[in-house]
């Protein structure tokens, strides 16, 4: 009897998870470089009430069994790496990637992690760092007396050292990383991703070549959350939650009916 109760409970849990994921997407609707996620579900195991092929009489077998499923479980929260909108910031150290690839950033633990948020700053040592102070990898140091910094489409960083523009210094090359298996990028917060798909599946290269996107200086990539889509998912999640709660009510009323049979 209580099977339906527990089945409906798995349904409500699943919808709750879906709303949790939507809530996180919506709260990051203005987070630069954010990539939205989607909760995916799978049907749970099945219980055989009568197995197909079981004997039902002399020389007779049941052609089709009776199988009752026991609900649903979350399968994955899939991240969508679709390009976000580009927004102009006119800040020389804001860099967006047009296409595939991620900036490589070094954590204090010297682990390399990845981000799509190219809002860089300069730390006291002159290095290009993220908002949290993590240096870009490979490291790029901007001289104190640089007048203007240019980041090319291909990731070459150049500094103009005087007003006339005669003294140009090449500071380094920004490289990007990507992987065919985007699912291998795991969020670790602060707009950062860690790659868990095996380091040999990771590809590093120069922007604008081998399928890597170009860099756009003075731009940031906005969050790729689409508010309307999230709203619709929220409505459908809420209604599905309601439908499952109706099943619990029905099961409860049937049990009540049973108890009244005394």
């Amino acid at each position, binding site marked *: 009897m209580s099977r339906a109760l527990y089945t409906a409970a798995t*349904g409500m849990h699943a919808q709750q998870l879906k709303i949790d994921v939507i809530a996180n997407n919506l709260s990051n609707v203005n987070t630069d470089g954010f990539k939205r996620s989607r909760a995916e579900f799978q*049907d749970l195991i099945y219980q055989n009430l009568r197995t*197909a092929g079981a004997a039902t009489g002399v020389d007779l077998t049941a052609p089709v069994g009776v199988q009752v499923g026991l609900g649903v479980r979350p399968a994955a929260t899939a991240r969508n790496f679709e390009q976000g909108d580009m927004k102009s910031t006119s800040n020389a150290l804001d860099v967006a990637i047009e296409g595939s690839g991620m900036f490589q950033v070094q954590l204090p633990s010297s682990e390399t992690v990845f981000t799509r948020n190219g809002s860089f700053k300069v730390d006291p040592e002159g290095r290009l760092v993220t908002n949290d102070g993590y240096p870009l990898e490979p490291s790029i140091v901007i001289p104190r007396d640089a007048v203007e910094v240019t980041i090319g489409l291909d990731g070459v960083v150049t500094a103009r050292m005087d007003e006339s523009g005669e003294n140009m210094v090449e500071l380094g090359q920004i490289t990007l990383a990507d992987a065919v*298996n985007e699912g291998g990028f795991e969020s670790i917060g602060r707009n950062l991703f860690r790659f868990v798909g095996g380091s040999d*599946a990771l590809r590093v290269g120069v922007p604008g070549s081998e399928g890597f996107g170009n860099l756009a200086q003075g731009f940031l990539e906005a969050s790729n959350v689409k508010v309307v889509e999230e709203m619709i998912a929220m409505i459908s999640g809420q209604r599905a939650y309601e439908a499952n709660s109706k099943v619990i009510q029905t099961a409860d009323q049937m049990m009540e009916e049973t108890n009244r*049979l005394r």
Partner: protein
Amino acid sequence: MAYGIYVATAGAVARQTQLDLVANNLANADTAGYRSQEVSFNEVLHDATEAPHRHMVAVGENWVSMEPGPLVATQNPRDLAIEGSGFFSVSDGGFQTLTRSLTAQVGPDGRLVDAEGRTLLGQSGPIFVDRLAEFHVDEGGQVVQDGRPIDRLRVVDVSDPRGLVPLGGGGYQTSPESGTAFRTDAKVVQGALEGSNVRPLDSMIQLIQLQRDYQSLSRAITAYRQADEELIRASRG
């Protein structure tokens, strides 16, 4: 004892099984690739020696509804679904499992797997790709890398999909009733997953109907019991 009480009880038990099935359908109203489970009731002739014959009801069989679910666009080009009938073949621990839609990924050893880690099957076993190059799957199910065809996804169908046995995780297994899987051609859709084909409205109506049936049957059980009570009281004088 009046025999009818057993008939009513059998009916009530069958409604409980039906509730379990409806609960599972509604719990999976949002599960990609899920196909709703339908049930039929069988009349069981319990005692043919007496007239009038007494008929009981039992859950006869259930089957997988083969009405296609809606295609839900996901913008991930490696989310694959099948238009019309047919199934992708994946290998789960050596067993061929059928599934309606999947997300193709590159596994650690370069073979294509789905989100569950099941190996995608090509024309002759697993499909191996270059782990560092992009790949895509075209409409005919051909896996293409660097403009070069690698292998074609194995798309199969069975003579009676209603007889497929659900395994959970969106997977199905063939049964004697469904017939063995044969290879076929189907149009593969990229960037979409097949949504659940559960229709919440139908499920809600079933829910109301079965609850009311259950109520009537339990009233009948009560009526039989009261009749028995009356009989006992009358026979005592």
